[in-house]
Every structure is written in structure tokens, then in C-alpha cells.
């Protein structure tokens, strides 16, 4: 099976610091792929390269057949990558429903003009957006809160809303940036169920950056480990757990 996402010899420097050095890996369709590493390993930089926040200095990022390295973020989303944010970035004063609806904008077809004159096409498009958004909220158990202001949701709900919003862009690949950050053990348990469910119900491929080892080891099928900007290991959770280089990176060597 060909890879959905291929990272090839990716390098990004900030002045004298090479944050990501010659990193390569590939994610297969339908895979739950984890990216881990100690603080400062370059995970976030890599994440930002894939989502278009930074442009790579060297190397390529290929999604399906098309190269997306260096495209602006909204074009990358158009290509089928959606993301959540580590430090939640919801549209705080919009309603829960409108948060999801706003993310439907990219894939909707009615023009500004037809919106101005309230044409039939406009009403049809709005109805489509509305029912699609409500279905997403239902799937993430947020449907009772559709009219609530996003900022008023409890933390765990906000994380779920971020995922709902990302799904509204109809991605092929979902990038989760530390989704378990700040969650208690029970919440992260639920998160793991949710991640598996998302993959199965939406036929998604999921790339996960996470610090919480329990979540990563529990949910990911394949894990890529980085340290100091370089790849140091890749394999199944079992392989990675026993890899001496990984243990050294996390616990320090002799």
C-alpha cells in the first residue's frame, strides 16, 4: 500500500539551530501514527512544517500524490490535512455550531453573490452545512451544546469541539497536537476511544504528537521518535519501548 503522507529528508533551520534535521518517515492510509520525543526534539516544528506554518528549508512533504511543502496553511487544509491546536484555538465568542460551520466554508460552493441575494443555491448550501455540522457535533457528543458560546465549554469539551471543527474540513489526514494535554486519566482514556472511533468511522489517517506515553503507547500502531531534531527510532509501540536509543533519549545514558 502506498503512503498517504511522505516526509522526505525534511530540514528546517532557525538561524544556527537546526530544529528538524533530515527527517524521513511515511504514514500509511488508515494508520494511527505517533510522533514522540523529549522536549525540544523538533516535534512541534515538524508539525508546523506539515501544516504550512513554516516552509521547509530542504526536503519534501508529499500528501497522496501532491507535494505540499511550503504551501500556505489554508491550501494545505484544502489538500486534506486538518489539525487541532495544543493550546486550544477555538473561535471563542462564536457558538459551538458556528465554530464547526465556519470550518465548512472552504468546501462549500455558494458564492458571496448568491448569499447576498439569498438564491436557492445559497439556501441549499446552508442547509447542507447545517446538517453536516450538526451530525459532527452529534458524533462528538456535543449536540446538546450547539447554541452555547464556545468559550463557555469545559476544557474537555473544547478539545472535542476542536476535533469536530477539524473534521468539518473533510480531511484525509488528521493531525492532533497533544490532544491529551491537561486531561485527567479518565479523560485521556475516553480520548483514546475517540481517536480509534474517528479512524474507523471517518476512514481517517491520524498523526498524533503527544507527551502522554500512556495515550501514545495505547493508541498508536506505529511510532516515530525524534530527539534533537533527528529521527532516532521508528516501529511498533513494543519495539520503540525497548529501543535503547529511545530509553537513552528520555532517561539519559551512562
Amino acid at each position, binding site marked *: 500500500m502506498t503512503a498517504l503522507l511522505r516526509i522526505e529528508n525534511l530540514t528546517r533551520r532557525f538561524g544556527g539551530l537546526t530544529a528538524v534535521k533530515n527527517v524521513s518517515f511515511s504514514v500509511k492510509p488508515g494508520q494511527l501514527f505517533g510522533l514522540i520525543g523529549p522536549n525540544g526534539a523538533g516535534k512541534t516544528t515538524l508539525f508546523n512544517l506539515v501544516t504550512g506554518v513554516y516552509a521547509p528549508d530542504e526536503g519534501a512533504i508529499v500528501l497522496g500524490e501532491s507535494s505540499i511543502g511550503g504551501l500556505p496553511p489554508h491550501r494545505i*487544509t484544502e489538500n486534506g490535512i486538518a489539525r487541532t491546536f495544543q493550546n486550544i*484555538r477555538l473561535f471563542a465568542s462564536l*457558538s459551538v455550531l458556528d465554530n464547526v460551520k465556519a470550518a465548512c*466554508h*472552504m468546501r462549500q460552493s455558494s458564492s458571496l453573490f448568491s448569499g447576498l441575494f439569498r438564491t436557492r443555491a445559497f439556501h441549499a448550501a446552508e442547509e447542507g452545512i447545517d446538517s453536516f455540522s450538526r451530525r459532527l457535533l452529534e458524533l462528538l457528543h456535543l449536540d446538546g451544546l450547539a447554541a452555547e458560546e464556545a468559550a463557555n465549554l469545559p476544557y474537555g469539551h473544547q478539545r472535542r469541539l476542536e476535533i469536530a471543527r477539524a473534521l468539518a474540513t473533510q480531511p484525509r489526514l488528521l493531525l492532533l497536537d497533544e490532544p491529551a494535554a491537561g486531561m485527567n486519566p479518565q479523560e485521556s482514556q475516553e480520548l483514546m476511544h475517540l481517536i480509534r472511533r474517528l479512524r474507523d468511522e471517518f476512514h481517517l489517517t491520524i498523526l498524533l504528537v503527544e507527551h502522554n506515553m500512556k495515550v501514545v503507547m495505547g493508541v498508536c500502531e506505529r511510532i516515530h521518535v525524534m530527539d534533537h531534531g533527528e529521527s532516532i527510532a521508528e516501529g511498533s509501540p513494543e519495539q520503540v519501548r525497548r529501543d535503547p536509543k529511545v530509553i537513552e533519549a528520555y532517561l539519559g545514558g551512562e
Partner: protein
Amino acid sequence: MKKILLVLAVLGGMGLLQWALTAFLLDGPVRQGPYYYQILMLAGINVILAVSLNLTNGITGQFSIGHAGFFAIGAYVAASVSVYAGPTLQGSLAGLPSFAADSVLLLVASAAGVAAAAAAGWLVGMPSLRLRGDYLAIVTLGFGEIIRVLILNIDAVGGARGFTGIPRYSNFFWVGLGVVAAISTVRHIVRSSHGRALLSIREDEIAAQAMGVAVTRHKVTAFVIGAAFAGLAGSLFGHFTMYLHTNSFTFVKSFEIIIMIALGGLGSLAGAALGAVVLTVLPELFRGFAEYRMVIYALALILIMIYRPQGLLGKGRFLGRGKDK
């Protein structure tokens, strides 16, 4: 069908209002009628300005302080069309009754004013909307002043003497239609997918972009539409006062419009309209101490910011909200 009826009803209503206003205020029994009529006209023009600026500042969250610049472009371009091309056009419309001929001339002049203001909005918006926050504010402030100084130095439009001899084509009928057009345009935009995209930019630009919103393109679109309506307001203004001077278009005017929308509640459409009416009428009530107007403004703003930071109608009445149950 329903839409056609609605348009006819609005046209008829405005026509009726115009007839009543003419009968009672202009030719009628009310003392100081023309004065009240003038306040009404200015309030309408200010509503157009406030509602259109609200699209940029309140809904898209791009703090622009150059709205008076677009207002000026619309006013001067439309007035120039009327003054310089008007006589020729008038000749070809000789067969029509005078009110119809006036209306056609106003529409032609306004179209030119709107187009010029929109074009200016695009030119200013393209580079400057890539900037954020303070920088955008500074650029738009600079733009407004540049326009004013530029006009001040064009002799064909009167320069520092002011532009005289503009025919009085606009009346409450047209201003009322302009108000309806501005409000319904902005309202329809906000309550559409494009409007949600604009709101998402205001809420969090980075997240909006990550959700696939082409941020710069949407900002420019909102800015151009806002500028176009400011141009329309300018055209209606010039064809009402029959005289234009750059003193009406200083940055103080831009701030006045900002205060209107802040007073009403940023992002609230009804608030912007209310703010515009209040800030047109209030100074008239305080005519006796007109030189303290700016002091009253400042005081009012400070008091609102302390006691009602979201504006008179801010939040709760916010558009696109409260509909979803």
C-alpha cells in the same frame, strides 16, 4: 416573487416617506422643518458609514481608521461626475421629467463614486491587510490623510476653497434606500458562510487559516465592500450639502465613525445603526456648547467603556447568534 414584492414595498415605503417629509418638513407647517430634514439625512448617511465600517472593524476584526478617506473619494468622484459630466448627460435626458432625470444622474454619479471608493479599498487593502493590529490602523490612518491632502491640492475640485456648484440630487428616498442596501448587504453577508469565515478571522486568524479560510482574500473582500458603501455615503452626502470641503473628511471623521460602532457595540449591526443616529442627534442637542463636542465624545466613550464595555447593543444581540436553538 416574494423578493420582488419586498423590493417594491421598500421602494414604495421610501417614496411615501419622501412625500410626507417634503409635505411636512420642507414645504410644510413644521418650524425649522428643513433643519430636521437635514439631521435626518445626515443620520442616514452616518448609518451607512457606520454599518459599512462595522463589516471591517466589528465583524472581520480588522481595525481600520481610514473610513473617511473612502467617504471622501466617493463624495468627490461622484460630485465631479455631476458637475463636469452632468450638463452633457442632462441634455440627453431632456425628455424625462425633472425628478427622473435627477435620479438617473444621481445613480450614474453614485456608481462612479462607489466604484472609485471600492477600487481604492482594493488598492489599500491588498498590501495593508497582510499587516495586523496596530500596523493596519496606522496604514489606514495614513491613507485617509493622504487622500484628504491630495484632494486639497486638486484645483478642479475646488482645492482649499471647497467644491461648489454640486446639484442637489439626493433626498431621503435615496438615503433611505442606501441605508436599507447597506444594512441588508452586511446582514446577509454575516448570516452566510462567508460571514462565518469573516467572524472566524476576527476570532482567531491562525485557526481560521488552519480551517481553510483564505484569510487575506476574505479580509480584502470585506474591506472593499465596506469602502464601496462609504463611497455611496459620500456621493449621497455631496449631492445633499451641494458643497464639499476636505475639512469634513479629516481623521476626526474616521474616529467619529469608529465611536459610532464602538458605542453601539462592535460587531452588532443594530448597534452600529443606533450609534450613528445617537451620535448625529446628540451634538445637535448640545448645539449651545458645540465646541465641547469632542469633550462630550471622550466622556461618553470613557463612560461606556467603564459601564458597558461591549457597547450599547454588543453581545447577546450579536448577529448570527441567538438563531440556533
